[in-house]
């Protein structure tokens, strides 16, 4: 009886926490994330599942029972399978495609360049991470944080540096949630008030045929150039075609509800759980967080500056704030751009234009991920 009691007690989470305080730190981090997601409403669809996953994943246990996300045959391991194989990110892209309206992008194709420009942040960070001594595959995974796209980051990391999924995903999602904190200062720093006041024209009407052709053209042009972007972009454009073709509405509607919700729940929760303190709390993670912030800021800056450069050549100037929405981080960065625009001039509606940059940022970072993947496989 006493033996049983003792062996039970030494298997409680309380006991393990008393041995290794890092679990407690991570639980506290989880609670902070919950606070940000729920009370501050920073991207709750991402933060709430991740944050609760962090709490659950850091309740320590005896390794060997088959309980944890890193142990074979555990329930959580099977759910985590969708992360490590890249299934959840691809499925999220399917649903994302089925809910994204590319109309305003189609009406203003030049805004697509801002989505490309913001990816420069990715490549700056790649160099930076190599400078700090990371291995090439790790550096690529870290750099993609600058793409500001959670599923893309997770997908690339799962392929190149699966041991870093935890920190990279957390960094990516944290910075996406912190957009209202990170982006506005950079936006103010790099643009003048005059630029921020620039109004965009009402985009023209886009016909159904155009919206229909876009996903087909998009998948062909992007993936013939970078076939490694197929698992993400193939799904994204598939979802979008289902949405736009109008003859498979029931499929599109399931894709943008039950399917994406299920993938979102399990993706977020598992990514949270993967932050188990003993594998997560390392100096490397801290370095990744630092680089992630750099990547994110550089991406924002690249977009803004490219917008200003474009204005040197364009007769009809664009509002360079839109460049900040090129990072993707759907729809947070678009909202920031809109709010910043309205802050200067409450009658200036940038939302639709910013969404166009947003969605091209999603495409841009998926291509960037594909390119980084193939560089590292060819290398």
């Amino acid at each position, binding site marked *: 009886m006493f033996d049983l009691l003792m062996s039970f007690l030494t298997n409680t989470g309380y006991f393990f926490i008393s041995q290794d305080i890092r679990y407690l730190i991570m639980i506290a981090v989880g609670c902070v994330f919950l606070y940000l997601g729920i009370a501050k409403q920073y991207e709750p669809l991402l933060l709430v599942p991740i944050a609760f996953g962090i709490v659950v994943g850091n309740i320590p246990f005896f390794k060997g029972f088959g309980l944890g996300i890193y142990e074979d045959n555990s329930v959580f391991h099977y759910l985590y399978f969708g992360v490590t194989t890249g299934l959840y990110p691809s499925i999220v892209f399917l649903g994302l495609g089925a809910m994204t309206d590319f109309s305003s992008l189609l009406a203003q194709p*030049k805004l697509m360049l801002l989505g*490309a420009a913001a990816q420069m942040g990715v490549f700056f960070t790649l*160099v930076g991470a190599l400078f700090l001594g990371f291995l090439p595959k790790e550096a690529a995974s870290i750099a993609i944080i600058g793409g500001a796209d959670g599923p893309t980051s997770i997908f690339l990391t799962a392929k190149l540096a699966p041991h870093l999924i935890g920190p990279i995903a957390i960094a990516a999602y944290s910075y996406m949630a912190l957009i209202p904190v990170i982006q506005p200062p950079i936006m103010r720093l790099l643009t003048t008030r005059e630029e921020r006041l620039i109004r965009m024209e009402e985009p023209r009407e886009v016909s159904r045929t155009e919206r229909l052709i876009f996903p087909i053209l998009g998948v062909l042009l992007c993936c013939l*150039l970078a076939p490694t972007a197929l698992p993400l972009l193939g799904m994204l454009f598939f979802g979008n075609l289902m949405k736009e073709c109008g003859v498979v509405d029931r499929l599109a509607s399931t894709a943008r509800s039950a399917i994406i919700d299920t993938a979102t729940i399990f993706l977020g929760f598992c990514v949270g759980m993967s932050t188990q303190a003993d594998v997560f709390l390392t100096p490397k993670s801290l370095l990744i967080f630092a680089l992630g912030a750099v990547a994110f800021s550089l991406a924002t800056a690249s977009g803004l500056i490219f917008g200003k450069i474009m204005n040197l050549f364009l007769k009809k100037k664009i509002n360079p704030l839109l460049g900040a929405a090129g990072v993707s981080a759907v729809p947070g960065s678009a909202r920031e751009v809109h709010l910043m625009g309205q802050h200067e001039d409450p009658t200036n509606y940038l939302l639709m234009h910013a969404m166009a940059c947003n969605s091209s940022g999603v*495409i841009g970072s998926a*291509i960037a991920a594909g*390119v*980084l993947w193939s560089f590292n496989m060819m290398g």
Partner: protein
Amino acid sequence: MGLDNIALNNGWSQALLGASIVMTGLVILSIAISQIHKLVDFWEKRGQKAEPEPATAPAGTATTVSGLTLEVPDQCPADINQVADLYRPIVAQLGTTFELRELYQRAAQFDLPHPHFTIKCLRDAHILIPQGDGFFSWNQ
């Protein structure tokens, strides 16, 4: 570590080339989508010209079908009662009152043409009568 690590791992090339590829990809795509517009216009004009000539392949069949499935629903069909006939056997299965959703699902299940639009027309023609609370009945 340091610049050596960048050079050793092709960092500069990767960054430069990577950035160029992403930019190239989106530039191509943005040029392409700025042209869809024209393509569509051209195609639709061609289509308007071609339309008067009857379709090529399975002529008889196509007509049978197209009368029902392929016309563009710009306005409600004049022969709304004929359309109503198509719906009557379905409605019969739904009972005296039903929700539009049910009717729509059935119509979609039998692949009847343009169910949303047709149901709208049936309402306009007072063949489908609202009974309150989202329920409808059939007035024939």
